[in-house]
C-alpha cells in the first residue's frame, strides 16, 4: 500500500510583510527588496502529502518551476520530509501566465507515476488559484479545490472536506485526483533537524554551476562536484523544457494568452483629510458634522 503524491510548490516574494525597507519614497513597493519565501499554502499542501505518507506509506515528490534560487524551497521540502525534489528551470519558461505554467507543470507531472497531486490553493504573489484547476484539466484528473481536511483514503478513492464559502462539503472521488489545499487544512511541520543536516548541502546542477562561476577559480570542479553529490544522494533533479518534451508553442510568453497592458502602483489617499483632536470637543464636533451631513442618522 501507500500513495504516490506529487506536490507543486512555488517560491514567492513575501507580499504580506512589506516593511519600510521595501517601500520607495513615493509609497510604491520595491519588489526586489522583498524576501523570497515558500508560498504559505504550498506548505499546507506539502504537509498534507507528508501526513498521507506518515499514515499510509508512499512517496512524496515536490516540483517547482522557477529560477535557480527556487532550489531553496526544494531543500526546505526535503528538510520537512519530501523524498524527492525536482526543479524545472528554463529561460523559455519566462513570462508564462497561469495557462502556460499549468501546461509546463503537466508535462512534468506526466513523467511521474502519481495517485494524488497536491497544490496550495493559491500563491500570494498572484492570488489567482488558477494553476491547480488548469493542471487538473491538462492531466484529465478530477479536481477537489479548497480542501480543508482529508477524511479517508481507501486505496481506490479519497474522501475530503472542502470549503464552499458558506459552508462545508464532503466529497468522494476515485484516484487519481488533484487537490488544492487551504491554509486551514493543517499546521505545517517544521524542518527536522536530522534531515536538515543531511540535505543542507543538496544542490541542483544549475546552483553548482553558478557557485562555480562565482568562485572564478582556475580549476573548475563542476563535473566532479555533480558526481560527488549524486553519489551522496544530494543532487536535486533538474529538468528543462527539452527534457519535459514540452511543445514550446504552449510555453512562456508565446504560450500565454494573457498579457499585461499596464501596471500601476497603488497609493491610496483621501481627497480631503483633516486631523481631529482626540479630546471631547474635537470628537463631539466631528460627530456633529457627520450627523449634519447625514452620514450618521
Amino acid at each position, binding site marked *: 500500500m501507500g500513495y504516490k503524491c506529487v506536490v507543486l510548490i512555488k517560491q514567492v516574494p513575501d*507580499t504580506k510583510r512589506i516593511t519600510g525597507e521595501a517601500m520607495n519614497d513615493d509609497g*510604491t513597493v520595491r519588489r526586489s527588496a522583498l524576501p523570497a519565501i515558500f508560498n504559505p499554502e504550498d506548505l499546507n499542501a506539502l504537509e498534507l502529502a507528508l501526513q498521507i505518507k506518515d499514515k499510509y506509506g508512499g512517496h512524496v515528490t515536490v516540483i517547482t518551476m522557477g529560477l535557480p534560487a527556487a532550489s531553496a524551497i526544494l531543500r526546505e521540502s526535503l528538510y520537512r520530509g519530501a523524498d524527492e525534489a525536482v526543479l524545472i528551470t528554463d529561460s523559455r519558461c519566462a513570462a508564462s*501566465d*497561469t*495557462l502556460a505554467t*499549468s501546461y509546463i507543470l503537466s508535462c512534468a507531472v506526466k513523467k511521474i507515476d502519481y495517485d494524488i497531486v497536491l497544490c496550495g490553493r493559491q500563491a*500570494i*504573489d498572484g*492570488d*489567482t*488559484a*488558477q*494553476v*491547480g*484547476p*488548469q*493542471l487538473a*484539466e*491538462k492531466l484529465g484528473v*478530477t*479536481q477537489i*479545490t*479548497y480542501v480543508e481536511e482529508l477524511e479517508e483514503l481507501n486505496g481506490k478513492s479519497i474522501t475530503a472536506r472542502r470549503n*464552499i*464559502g*458558506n*459552508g*462545508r*462539503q*464532503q*466529497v*468522494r*472521488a*476515485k484516484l487519481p485526483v488533484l487537490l488544492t489545499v487551504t491554509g486551514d487544512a493543517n499546521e505545517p511541520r517544521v524542518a527536522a533537524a536530522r534531515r536538515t543536516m543531511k540535505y543542507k548541502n543538496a544542490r541542483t546542477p544549475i546552483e553548482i554551476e553558478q557557485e562555480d562561476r562565482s568562485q572564478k577559480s582556475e580549476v573548475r570542479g563542476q563535473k566532479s562536484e555533480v558526481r560527488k553529490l549524486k553519489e551522496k544522494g544530494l543532487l536535486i533533479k533538474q529538468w528543462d523544457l527539452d527534457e519535459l518534451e514540452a511543445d514550446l508553442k504552449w510555453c512562456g510568453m508565446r504560450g500565454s*494568452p*494573457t*498579457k*499585461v*497592458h*499596464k*501596471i*500601476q*502602483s*497603488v497609493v*491610496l*489617499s*483621501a481627497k*480631503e483629510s*483633516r*486631523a*481631529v483632536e*482626540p479630546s471631547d470637543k*474635537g*470628537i*463631539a464636533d*466631528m*460627530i456633529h458634522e*457627520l450627523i449634519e451631513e447625514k*452620514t*450618521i442618522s
Partner: protein
Amino acid sequence: MIEVNRKGEVWVFAEQHYGQLEDTPVELMSKARHLADSLGVKLAAAVLGSDVKELAGRLIHYGADKVYLAEHELLEHYQTNSYAKVMYDLIHKHKPQIVLYGATIAGRDLAPRIASAAKAGLTADCTDLQIGNHKTSKDGKVHKNLLFQIRPAFGGNIIATIINLDRWPQMATVREGVMPAPEPDAKRKGEIITETVSLAQTNLPLEILAEHKRPKKINLKAARIIVAGGAGVGSKDNFKLIWDLANCLGGAPAATRAAVDLGFIDHDHQVGQTGTTVRPSLYIAVGISGAIQHQAGMSQSQKIVAVNNDPEAPIFNIAHYKIIGDLNEVVPRMIKSIKTVSRE
C-alpha cells in the same frame, strides 16, 4: 481553440445553487451591460441547473438581452466537470467574445478548468472591467475594443490591467462586492434560449456526500455604517469597544485579518482582500494600521474615520478624519458624544 469573434456577445455565468442566484453574478450584470453596450453587442447570461427556468426571467430583469438556459437533472448540484463541459460546449457553439464569472469558490473552481480546455486566457479576481485599445510595442499594431481586466496583484500593492489579444473568449472572474448590483426592471424583455444538454454519469466524477451550510453571521455588504477593529485593539475583551460603538451607531462590527487571526472576532466580520469588500457611508477604523490588503476592501467607503496612536499608520493616508490618540480614550468619547446627541 475558439476563434476570435468580434461580433460575439458578452456573457455572464449566472451561478446558482438550489435555485438561488449568487450575489456576485448579479452584481456583475450592470458592468457587463455597460461592456456590451460599448461594444454594440448583446448581453447574455448562461444559467445551468436543474429546474432553474424561473431564474431566466430574473436575469433579464437584471439587464440580460438573452438567457441561455441549460437544464439537466445531472446539473442539479454544481460540480466542476459537468458544469465545465456544458459551459465549454455553449462557448464553443455561440463564440461569445467575453465570458465573466463571479470569483466565488465555484467560479474560481470552474473558470480555470474551462480556460484550460479552451486554451483561452483567464484573469482572476478582477475589481474593474473596461473596454479599450492596446498597442503592441513590438509592431505598433493597435488592437481595438479589448476587455481590460483590472485586478490587484502582488498582495494588492499593484493594480494590473490584463488583456487577451487573440486567444478568445476573453474571460475573467470578478470579485464579490466590488460592483453595485443593478436594480431589477420587471418591464425588461429578453429572449430565453433553451439549450440541449448531453451529460452522462461519467461527467460527474465527484460524489457529493454531505453539505453543511453555515449562514454568514453578518452581512457587511448591506451595512451603512461599519466600525472595524484591528490588532491594535489588543484583546478579545477590548474588542467590546468596537461592538459598543457599532451598536450605538446602528452599524456593523468588522475587523482586519490580523484581528480575526488573533481570535478577536469571527472571520465573517473580516474586511479586506481575503474578506468582504465593503463600501459603506461611514467606515470607522480603530487600531488598524491599514495594510494594503485591508484598504483594498474598504477604500471605497464614502467617509473614513481612523483612530490610531501611530501617526505614521498608512490608514491615515485614506482617512477623511484622522484621530491620533489612544483608542481606549477616543472610542468611549465617541460613544459618549453619540449618546449625548441622541438624547438631545
